[in-house]
């Protein structure tokens, strides 16, 4: 199978806006899946609701596009009944951490053998740009017209604390690292959580002086601090500057997973 065979050809071009990072994340995911040589019949994509969750429908494998926030619960059912299936979950920041927060922490706690790819665009894109639990403090959205007042979620730390076996964060600019992280995540037994900061120029950038997709990618490039450097800085007492975020692999461990075929 070639990479192009993993795309559901009769549904492309997809519905994403020009410059949407979700398409890039879809590329990286399918590239990782293809690199591992997975059988398309043994791969299942599950997704919730939102822009991110439309990604599953553009893959040529079996895909279940479910209800808002519940993708991980549906995926748990699929995986437990057919443990041989490689189950990959596409979710977004609102889907995963707001309405699906409980399912997320419990999927991590169970450490069920899923690969969860969270396209964090800091906003509810599908409904037109409302603030999400991952909207950075001070950002303007349609429901935070005076700037977000609440603390954003750090999904990677949440996943780590809840018990996921593999946790990484990259952006839609770091395509090679992201592809590698997804590949490692797919190979790691137990829950692998890969958070991808993806640009939403239409709903988020538009209100936050990042109107062009290229501007948002430049912002990711500028503000991403690799984990090693962040750790070094932290040891020296240098905190992250405003707007900066850490990218890299946070956890890789081998706690007993659920839903893995016993050999």
């Amino acid at each position, binding site marked *: 199978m070639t990479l192009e065979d993993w795309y559901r050809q009769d549904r492309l071009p997809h519905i994403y806006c020009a410059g949407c990072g979700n398409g890039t994340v879809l590329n990286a995911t399918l590239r990782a899946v293809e690199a591992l040589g997975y059988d398309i019949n043994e791969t299942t994509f599950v997704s919730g609701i939102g822009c991110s969750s439309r990604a599953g429908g553009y893959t040529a494998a079996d895909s279940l596009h479910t209800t808002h926030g519940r993708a991980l619960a549906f995926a748990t*059912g699929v995986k*437990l009944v057919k443990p041989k299936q490689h189950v990959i979950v596409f979710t977004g920041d609102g889907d995963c951490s707001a309405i699906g927060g*409980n399912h997320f922490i419990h999927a991590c706690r169970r450490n069920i053998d899923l690969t969860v790819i969270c396209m964090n665009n800091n906003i509810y894109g599908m409904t037109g740009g409302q603030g999400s639990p991952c909207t950075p403090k001070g950002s303007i959205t349609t429901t935070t017209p005076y700037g977000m007042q609440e603390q954003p979620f750090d999904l990677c730390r949440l996943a780590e604390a809840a018990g996921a076996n593999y946790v990484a964060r990259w952006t839609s600019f770091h395509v090679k690292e992201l592809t590698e992280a997804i590949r490692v995540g797919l190979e790691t037994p137990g829950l692998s959580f890969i958070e991808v900061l993806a640009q939403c120029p239409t709903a988020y950038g538009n209100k936050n002086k990042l109107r062009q997709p290229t501007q948002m990618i430049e912002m990711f490039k500028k503000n991403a601090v690799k984990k090693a450097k962040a750790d070094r800085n932290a040891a020296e007492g240098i905190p992250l500057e405003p707007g900066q975020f850490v990218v890299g692999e946070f956890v890789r461990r081998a706690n007993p997973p659920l839903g893995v075929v016993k050999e």
Partner: protein
Amino acid sequence: MTGKTEFYNGNTACAEGALAAGCRFFAGYPITPSTEIAERMASRLPKVGGTFVQMEDELASMAAIVGGSWAGARSMTATSGPGFSLMMENIGYAAITETPCVVVNVQRGGPSTGQPTMAAQGDMMQVRYGSHGDYSIIALSPSSVQEMFDLTVKAFNLADRFRTPVFLMADETIGHMREKILLRENVEIIPRRELKEGELPCEPDENGIPGFGTFGNGHNIHITGLTHNEKGYPATDSAELHEAMVRRQVDKIEKHRLELTDVDIVNPEAEIVFISYGAPTRTVRQLLADEPDTYGHLNLRIVWPFPDHCLDEFKNAKAFIVPEMNLGQIAKEVRQYTNVKIITAPKLGGALHTVEELKKAAAAAETATRPVTEVRL
């Protein structure tokens, strides 16, 4: 039929029925008075090669069994009123994606937390109309421990035959009551029809039911809760397509009402007829045992789709008395199909109707003048 005779409560019988029907995946969340089903499944499923998982809530339980069903297993969950309310979201999802699954609702007093240890039948309308949008489902109502077993088996067969969520609407009385039960062996299993080569994933057959594209079997299909076309792809902007999809999904059940009729008709010549389902059926049968020729009786084992044609069997009927453990939910449904006057005999709080109370309702039928009269018992 052969099998072992046991002395079980209704919930245990339900779990055994599910296992006999080939259920191999159960996702649930503890809730009184249905917990024994989950407990039984937790202990029995691993021994027969199945999987039990206790989810974080009922939203997730319902989601997991839909996922499990698409992965190819006969899947079930069990709950009671408060959990049933949470399941509504994904019941709608199961309806639009035509996912076969079985949901057991051991009903208790509501609304809200209500009476956790008391029987009620207050979810009969919720099961039919609870999720948003237009859809149709099948709901069964057992009135004995043996029926908990038999109707659970039937529920799985109907779910796979019609590709729909099927509900077993038991109540606390039936769930916790112990009776002699025959654990039938080699029950009839009607498997779901697998999608054929070259057939589209949502292309209906002559019965309006598409083939089932089990995940992992090489069909490579897309399943979505959005309005979808025959390929299964989202197509939300066509009014015609949406109407055609919803109508087909409703019609596949409503147009099979005759096949989906499971009733007992007693004394069809009678003038005063009791219509009952679930626990009140037991009291009506007691009354009929005392006075065999006075009253007619229509017992519903399948409540939804409502078997309206059965009302016509009672040609001399002057009154239909509907004893229910709610404020007259199915009585309203009866009203839609008949001009015969209706006596509702609601009883809340968890106690069953007594024979005396049913006689009181029958006496009220003689004097009632309005189309629908409620008797305060």
